[in-house]
């Protein structure tokens, strides 16, 4: 993979009226990858994104897109990027085609060039038939597709997507994911924010988990999972008074890396299940713990998230608003 740098963020800090939205953030996005900013609402991912697309000026630190500073060379950056906002930024009285024509003029495309691109984009997002209907007649999924077409109109080097599937039904989500993968295959660099773990896991080459305005961890989904060190065995005990004694019994065992008490049982991080499972069962029997439920799984992105932020992400499952 091409490892040249598309975006460089250095010690970015943004404060609003005394409240720090983003604090001392540094990361890079490589050319041609899908980079995700994952975090709960209010974590600072939108602030980061909006700085990159020149809508916000950093309080301190810098951000550059393809080598151009987002403040000093904002106009150059704007020529290079496309943006798909989180809200359906649609003028309900304009038709789909008129949206694209307006943007064509704002990107200073000659009429013929604009018309050619618009035809291609309408085809790509399957809005050809609805192109001349006012946008107020569009469904949520169609509006999202129009949003994406708008973001692609300037033929950007880097596309920014803010919560691309928020509030969409499952069908539309999968459709949007397909587009994103296809754009990457065409060589586009994509930066997206999301608070859906599955979306980050499925789509992103690398992701930064952001919470409280700071990057908690950064890497590919696979790296992050491996980084947790080992698989997880979760036990649920019938007799919860036995939890502390089981914790201390397991803590010193070989093949077991970490033991953590949970409200109903234990989470045990193990090096290899073959060695650890018999030891766990043996101890549980010896202490007469009455196991109610055993779950064994490879680390998922949820576990990564919890390990680094100390809590569960909200809105894990998409709620179909349409």
């Amino acid at each position, binding site marked *: 993979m091409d490892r040249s740098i598309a975006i460089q963020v250095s010690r970015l800090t943004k404060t609003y009226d005394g409240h720090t939205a983003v604090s001392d953030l540094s990361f890079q996005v490589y050319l041609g990858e899908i980079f995700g900013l994952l975090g709960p609402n209010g974590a600072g991912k939108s602030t980061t994104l909006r700085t990159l697309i020149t*809508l916000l000026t950093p309080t301190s630190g810098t951000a550059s897109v393809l080598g151009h500073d987002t403040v000093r060379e904002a106009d150059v950056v704007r020529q290079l990027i496309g*943006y798909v906002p989180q809200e359906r*930024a649609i*003028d309900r009285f304009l038709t789909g085609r*008129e949206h694209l024509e307006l943007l064509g*003029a*704002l*990107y200073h495309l000659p009429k013929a060039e604009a018309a050619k691109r618009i035809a291609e984009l309408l085809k790509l997002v399957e809005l050809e038939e609805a192109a001349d209907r006012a946008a107020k007649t569009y469904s949520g999924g169609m509006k999202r597709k129009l949003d994406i077409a708008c973001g692609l109109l*300037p033929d950007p080097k880097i596309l920014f997507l803010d919560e691309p599937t928020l509030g969409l039904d499952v069908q539309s989500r999968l459709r949007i994911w397909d587009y994103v993968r296809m754009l990457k295959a065409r060589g586009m660099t994509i930066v997206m924010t999301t608070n859906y773990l599955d979306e980050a896991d499925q789509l992103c080459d690398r992701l930064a988990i952001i919470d409280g305005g700071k990057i908690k961890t950064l890497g590919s989904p696979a790296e992050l999972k491996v980084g947790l060190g080992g698989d997880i065995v979760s036990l649920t005990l019938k007799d919860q008074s036995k939890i502390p004694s089981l914790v201390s019994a397991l803590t010193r065992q070989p093949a077991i890396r970490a033991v953590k008490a949970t409200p109903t049982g234990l989470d045990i991080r193990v090096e290899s299940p073959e060695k650890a499972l018999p030891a766990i069962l043996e101890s549980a029997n010896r202490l007469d713990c009455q196991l109610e439920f055993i779950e064994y799984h490879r680390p998922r992105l949820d576990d990564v998230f919890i390990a680094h932020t100390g809590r569960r992400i909200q809105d894990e499952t998409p709620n179909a608003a349409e």
Partner: protein
Amino acid sequence: MKEYWQEIHALTMRWVRRLSREKFSMLFTLVQPMLFWLIFFGNLFQRAANVQVTQAPDYISFLTAGVVVMTVLNNGLAGGVDLLFDKENGFLERLMTTPIHRSSVILSRFIFVMTITSLQVLVILGVAFLFGVQPVTGLLGVAAILMIGMLFGVGLTAISMAMAFSVKSHGDFFSVLGFLSLPMIFLSSALVPLVGMPAWMGFLARFNPMTWAIDAVRPLILSGWTEALPHVGMVVVVMLIFDALCLYGSVKVFRRAMG
């Protein structure tokens, strides 16, 4: 320069399209001032109004100048509404990520509001004409009326757009709008000349830029150039100061809102 014009043209046409798609609202905006003020109010007070006070052949011909300037006032104060909606639904943000001159958005709005207002003023003068009100200064006078309207409208539209960028919610915007509009009309010479007002209202009305505009438009309709010219000269000075103040304040707000 060519690019700048391309942006302004595209953005202005967007406002025109929006208006043409909202037929009902367009009709309502266009008809309201004529219907409510000129036709109803004008005819209603035909006999109640004292000709000695109004110094006009009839109340409608006195009121026409007031209705013209009221229309400028209301259109100007509402001039930022569409930007407010753009701000709230994220459309403005989309525009701001494109490589346009920030001023294109603002300029397109000025052009649109001024054009609509001028058309509306012409329609009002047309309706007044049907009721026998004939501007004595002729077409040149009508042109002068349009110029005064635009001079006043620029400042008002600037205030309105600045407000659209500053308010927290559109509820706030419309409250302020509702609160400003009527007192501005009552505390002006739109419905009653200054001499016919209670002293304290007349005193306050003297500080209302609307009064200056009306007092220049009225002689253009009723009296003739010799009477009108000093007022027109005066209003140009007053409006230039008014516009300068409004623009100075709003440009600061635009800079902050749009970067």
